[in-house]
């Protein structure tokens, strides 16, 4: 199987506190990987390392042809070669945030049009066409000219997914995409992710939605205190986990 993402021995410290301690895993094309673990276990940090929003101290991240090694570069004023590297990687990696982070001064359509025109220099017309298609796909056909503040949380998150898809990424990353949502709106967002999975999108999801993980994931990673303690198919993780910490965690979440 073709490995699209390889993470190798990733370490990250916040001052003296270790956030990630030697994490390694791989993701194949079209796989949906779910990362679970108790709060503060480092799963969001790990996800943010994958597109360089978070820098790491040692180890490497490879996504497609992009390979990141930063050797403790400082968060501010990255060396320019690293900056360029990060930018190219991010063009291939879409990111969806817990708090949506839509651009409030732009309409939903403009949110999805901006990056392709600015970054990829796609023509306005072409970008709009593509954005309309994507927004229709996520069920926002009649909300394109609204401002984010006029939408429900579920609609906003679907718009954010469309915005990320507009860059035609090879990988989609989700950082607790449904945690800020009213329970009744969670389903509509998970459905989009399910639909993308069916279409063969490679996705990495940090979430507390265990049912979603069990039903849809190809692979589940369990993190605890910055360590990857277990990595297996959902059947194994949810029915016969090997690690005591996984069992403890699942007892509380199921």
């Amino acid at each position, binding site marked *: 199987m073709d490995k699209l993402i390889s993470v190798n021995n990733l370490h990250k410290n916040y001052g003296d506190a270790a956030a990630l301690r030697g994490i390694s895993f791989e993701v194949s094309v079209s796989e949906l990987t779910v990362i679970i673990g108790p709060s503060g276990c480092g799963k969001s940090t790990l996800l943010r390392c994958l597109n360089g929003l978070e820098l790491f101290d040692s180890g490497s991240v490879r996504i497609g042809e992009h390979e990141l090694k930063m050797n403790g570069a400082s968060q501010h*004023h990255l060396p320019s070669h690293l900056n360029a590297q990060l930018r190219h990687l*991010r063009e291939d990696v879409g990111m969806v945030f817990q708090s949506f*982070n839509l651009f409030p001064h732009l309409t939903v359509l403009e949110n999805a049009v*901006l990056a392709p025109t600015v970054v*990829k220099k796609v023509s306005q017309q072409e970008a709009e066409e593509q954005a309309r298609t994507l927004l229709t796909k996520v069920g926002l056909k*009649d909300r394109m000219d609204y401002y984010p*503040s006029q939408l429900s949380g579920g609609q906003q998150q679907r718009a954010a997914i469309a915005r990320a898809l507009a860059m035609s990424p090879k990988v989609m990353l989700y950082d607790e995409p449904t945690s800020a949502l009213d329970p009744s709106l969670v389903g509509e967002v998970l459905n989009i992710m399910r639909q993308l999975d069916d279409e063969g999108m490679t996705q990495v999801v940090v979430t507390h939605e265990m049912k979603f993980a069990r039903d849809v994931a190809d692979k589940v990673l369990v993190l605890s205190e910055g360590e990857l303690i277990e990595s297996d198919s959902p059947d194994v993780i949810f029915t016969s986990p090997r690690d005591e910490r996984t069992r403890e965690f699942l007892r509380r979440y199921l």
Partner: protein
Amino acid sequence: MNLVRKITEQTERTEKDESRIPFIQLFPFVPLSLLLIFLLAFPVKAQDLRWGGDAEGGAPYLLPDPKNPRRIIGFEIDLMDALGKQLKRKSVFVQNQWDGLIPGLQRGSYELAVNGIEITDDRKEQVNFSIPYYVCGEQLSVRATENSINSIADLKGKIVGTLKFSLAHRLLEQAKKDFGGALEIRSYENQNNPYDDLTNGRLQAVLMDWPIAVYYSKPNPKLKFTGPIIGEMQYGIAVRKDDAELLKQVNEALLALIRSGELRAIYDKWGIWNEETEKLFAKLSQTEQKSDALNEFTQTVSAKLTWRERVKRYWGYLPALLFVGAPMTLLISVLGMALAITYGLLLALAQLYAPKPLSWLARAYVELFRGTPLLIQLYLIFYGLPNIGIRLSPIVAAVVGLGMNYAAYEAENYRAGIQAIPRGQMEAALSLGMTRWQSLRHIIVPQAMRLVIPPVTNDFIALFKDSSIVSVITMVELTKVYGQLAATYYDYIGAGILTAAIYFLMGLPFVRLARWAEARLATDKRVVTTSKKRWLSVGAKPA
């Protein structure tokens, strides 16, 4: 009679005492402040002859002694010392800004105003003047290499400097009219700046009272006098209208000083004895016996204006205020603010995102420019920069000065606005593959702009009013026009209220514009505004 007066005095006193007792009990600090007032009032002894002048005026009138700047010297000090001796009162100089000398006299800050004050009809409406103590005309100065300018008629199309509110200024205004406007007059606050600007080429000629020219132009080898003395004016000592007795004493004392030759000795000492004054003194000496006639000469009828005349006068102020002052104020303010807004944004971005040395420089700039007075910055730009070869025209200097100063404030507004944008916005933009610069340009700055509209509007209004300060670098804007009107008519209240009203009315459209922009750009608030329904119905068209 005496008895009656004593009794009434006594009753008055007891009444006063009674009324004061509970007052003191209520406010224990009242006796203290009364003491303070007493102490402050103490130096005003009846025998002192207090007279007002402006030591900033310069040589040879009044100036700080170059050897001991705390001491004021000048031919007018000598004149008043001699006059005080005649009147057997001690002459005491009171510093007062020149523009405000006559208002200060009327307010009672001093008994006489003496500082090269020309005897004019306008002023005679306000105060009485003594017999003239000095006569002179205006002297034209040019650069030593200049040979084409020999009289006022040669000034057509030239840039000429002079002192504000002076006879020279009026002569130049007249010439400008005769030339159909082909003459640029720059009016200065003090005496040496015009000659500096003549030396460095900003001006092509300077027309100035002869004694000033003798002191500031003649010693400068790069400059020379040209043409004959132009015009004639008489300096008089200003006395309050109700002070007829003092006026009489002053006139008699002046005559005595003229007769004894003391006054001439003073002028000789200062090197300003001239033909005109010689003729005047000869004439005055002949009429020495008829001092009543002299009093009449100075006693002008106090012309009280009727209500109708007053309105007509105010109406007459409007063209100058509206068509000369206001457009210049508007122009300087708008250009200054445009500079401040763009430059301020660069400073804010440099502080937040530029590499260390550059962000440090931007920080230092902000602290320096908001921490030092705008007035001094303007002086440095206008009078300081020519020393290193940068000679800005008044309007450019005004715009640059205001713009550079306000840029420091705008930078802080932007910095606050940018930092108020949630971090997630930058992260979302970066994770879409945008560069930091693209994220700033498309995502962060547009949102920050909306946030900073109120404080930036605030600063624009402040700049609008601060623009009045550029009058010190020869700009004729609204406040300068006000100053000219007020000084001509001694009407600080009427002209002041009119000018303030014009500032206020000119500022209003900008306030409205800002409100409009705020409402229009506040996209995330649209959902709670009244336009919500319209918005939703437009957006909710059936697919």
